[in-house]
């Protein structure tokens, strides 16, 4: 130790001024934010948050047809416990640091007042929120760059993970100033996890309570076209920011901040929280009309793209799915006789969203209701110049969706009309359809096998909505699945017996006779099945 105190000119605190104090506040916020960003928990949370995306990227299992609004909702659900939870604990540790390390005695007599110090802790959360935005932006940006991406990135939804980080970070600071124990923060994170579990249950999703929750949860289980969601993201964001401002005001009040500052915080927080909270749950007068349009007059709001002799119509933002649909259509047409590949009206594929069939509560309609809706679609298709259009879902990218579309296309080529929905496909046509789907491509085969694994009693070519998913009884599917191993022998027979095999009245036994495969005896239950006429 050497006494060199006179070497450098000492620096002294600047005389008291609001500007100087603000600078100190910013300096403290900067110092704390760097420590928060470098905290092992923050780093671990960032890695955990990115893990699903990294895994998909490294393993190649990522969906090549992501729907961006849905991706953002998933990201939000991950951000709440992971990014928000880590922000809560880290902010709590920062707030309690002086107490934990018994430095209070020294710090109590330093110049910057407690209210400004907690103000610095709150401000330090902003870079953490920036990190959340960056972390959310990485997978979303990656998805958006894919040619098959659908929908658009809503800025308010993209900012929601940041708002959640700020909100839970403010909870951490408030817990620190109220209770001097580091055990509280992990308990609050646990509570958040439990709440989030409740959020994703239909019990909450179907009620108005979901509007009060910090995460946006869609009432639909599959992607929906723009404009049919009942919770505007911008108002939800305002609601979150409002709660955060209220928490910050509570922190400042506890730290004896000036009354005017606390009052201003309360007013702004209340306006945002109450305003955003109420208006987000208020029914939008245009919403019902928008939903009717999407369900019943889709053609009026869709764009169409012609590829070869096939027309593909889709909701705004879903054009990226067309190449994927086209690949499936082409593969199915390749395994039917040339004459059948162009049977009926010009082939068209139209995207449909059956909103009340895809809510979190599941399908609540009836077969009769389904058939009525499908009949309406047929009328609309005819009016739009795409009669007997094949229907396709708003989800795309996995094998099961490809198999479901392949089944729809196969039926359309076999029957020269679109599937009517509701009833089972029976007899030889049912077995032929299964064989065509399996034969079309490895993707459709894998999808069909996957659907078969989760189907009981019948093979359902839809994993989401029963409204227009083709149903094939297991008795008809079994011989066709057996034949998939003998493609070379079967294909010529299919071509030769095409007309007979596609006739609705041809029994399954005839299919067995043509291809030499055993057919299960008709069970009493099978006799009762309502079959497509």
């Amino acid at each position, binding site marked *: 130790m050497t006494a060199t105190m006179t070497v*450098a000119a000492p620096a002294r605190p*600047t005389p*008291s001024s609001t500007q100087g*104090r603000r600078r100190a506040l910013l*300096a403290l916020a900067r*110092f704390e934010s760097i420590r928060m960003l470098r905290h092992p928990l923050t780093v671990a949370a960032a890695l955990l948050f990115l893990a699903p995306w990294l895994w998909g990227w490294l393993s190649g299992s990522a969906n090549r047809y992501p729907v961006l609004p849905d991706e953002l909702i998933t990201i939000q659900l991950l951000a709440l416990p992971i990014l928000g939870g880590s922000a809560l604990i880290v902010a709590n540790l920062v707030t309690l640091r002086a107490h934990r390390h018994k*430095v209070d005695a*020294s710090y109590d*007599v330093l*110049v910057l007042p407690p209210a400004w110090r907690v103000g610095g802790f709150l401000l330090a959360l902003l870079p953490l929120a920036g990190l959340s935005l960056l972390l959310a932006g990485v997978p979303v940006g990656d998805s958006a760059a894919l040619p098959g991406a659908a929908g658009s990135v809503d800025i308010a939804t993209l900012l929601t993970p940041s708002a959640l980080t700020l909100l839970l970070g403010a909870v951490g600071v408030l817990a620190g100033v109220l209770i001097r124990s580091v055990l509280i923060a992990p308990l609050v994170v646990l509570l958040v996890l439990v709440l989030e579990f409740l959020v994703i249950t239909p019990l909450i999703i179907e009620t108005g309570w979901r509007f009060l929750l910090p995460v946006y949860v869609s009432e639909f289980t599959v992607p929906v076209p723009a404009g049919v969601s009942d919770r505007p993201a911008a108002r939800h964001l305002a609601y979150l920011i409002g709660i955060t401002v209220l928490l910050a005001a509570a922190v400042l009040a506890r730290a004896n901040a000036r009354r005017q500052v606390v009052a201003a915080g309360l007013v702004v927080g209340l306006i945002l929280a109450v305003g955003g909270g109420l208006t987000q749950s208020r029914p939008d007068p245009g919403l019902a009309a928008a939903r009717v349009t999407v369900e019943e007059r889709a053609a009026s709001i869709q764009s169409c793209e012609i590829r070869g002799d096939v027309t593909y119509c889709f909701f705004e933002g879903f054009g990226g799915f067309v190449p994927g649909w086209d690949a499936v259509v082409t593969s199915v047409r390749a395994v039917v006789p040339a004459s059948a590949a162009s049977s009926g009206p010009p082939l068209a594929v139209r995207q449909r969203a059956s909103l009340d069939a895809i809510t979190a509560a599941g399908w609540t309609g009836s077969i009769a209701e389904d058939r009525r809706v499908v009949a309406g679609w047929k009328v609309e298709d005819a009016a739009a110049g795409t009669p007997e259009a094949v229907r396709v879902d708003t989800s795309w990218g996995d094998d099961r969706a490809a198999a479901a579309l392949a089944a729809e296309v196969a039926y359309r080529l076999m029957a020269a009309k679109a599937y009517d929905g509701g009833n089972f496909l029976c007899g030889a046509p049912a077995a032929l359809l299964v064989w065509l789907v399996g034969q079309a491509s490895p993707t459709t085969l894998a999808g069909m096998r996957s659907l078969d694994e989760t189907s009981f009693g019948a093979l359902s070519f839809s994993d989401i909505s029963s409204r227009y998913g083709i149903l094939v009884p297991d008795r008809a599917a079994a011989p066709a699945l057996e034949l998939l191993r003998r493609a070379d022998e079967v294909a010529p027979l299919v071509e030769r017996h095409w007309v007979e095999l596609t006739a609705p009245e041809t029994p399954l036994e005839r299919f067995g006779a043509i291809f030499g495969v055993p057919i299960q005896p008709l069970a009493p239950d099978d006799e009762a099945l309502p079959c497509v006429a």
Partner: protein
Amino acid sequence: MTAVQATGLALRYGRTTALEDVTFTLRTGVTGLLGPNGAGKTTLLRIVATALPADGGTLRVFGHDPSTPPGRLAVRRLLGYLPQDPGFHPSFTAFEFVDYVAILKELTHRATRHTEVARVLSAVGLDDRRRSRIRTLSGGMKQRLALAAALVGDPDLVILDEPTVGLDPEQRLRFRELIADLGERKTVLLSTHQTEDVMSLCQEVVVLDRGRVRFEGTPTELAGLAAGRVWTSAAREAGALASWRTGTGLHRHVGDPPSGAALVEPSIEDGYLTLVGAAAEASAIAGGAR
């Protein structure tokens, strides 16, 4: 110039009197605060450091009244305080810790602040450990780091509560060197049990005992309280206030010497012992009488 003027300071914790009618003055230089355990030294330091309000009396620090918020703030701007058990953030580096304290002292300009932090770290001899995590520093280094934190911002009043506890002799000497240098320009209030620290550093000394000021003067004057009351002899003498065998083989006694005793020059320790011992004796007699 008068830096601190305390008049009739008092503080009670329930029925216990911690301080009573404490009056003293501090000027530029090092003032030692001596007293037995429980005398109220730390309480007094905390009051002067604005960490604790007094129940009664008046206190002025460079003319500011710490009992008012603006006065308290003004005092804090001029203050460096090293508490008895300074805490540390183990994961901080030495530089980060002092930088953090500098921010809380409202040293707002980043470059200037960093220069100041480097200056005080250099002053306490931690220049080469500035990037070391505090958890890796020795006890002596931590004590120097706490001093650096107290000195950052060049405070006019430095309050040090037993800063040399736990330091080895070499570290203590270096600490003295530093505090002595500081005392040339600043007002330093040094609470300590080490009478040799007071003798070698302080221009003034205040002795506090059972919440009251028993003495205020120079170290020589404190030592002078024992003049004619310190003697040596070959054997222990039971009537002395204190008696011990020295390295020379002779016994040194403090108290009322017998006639013909070989009186010796009193030390500050003898003066302190005379002052506090006599008070304790008087208190014991008073207690016995009750």
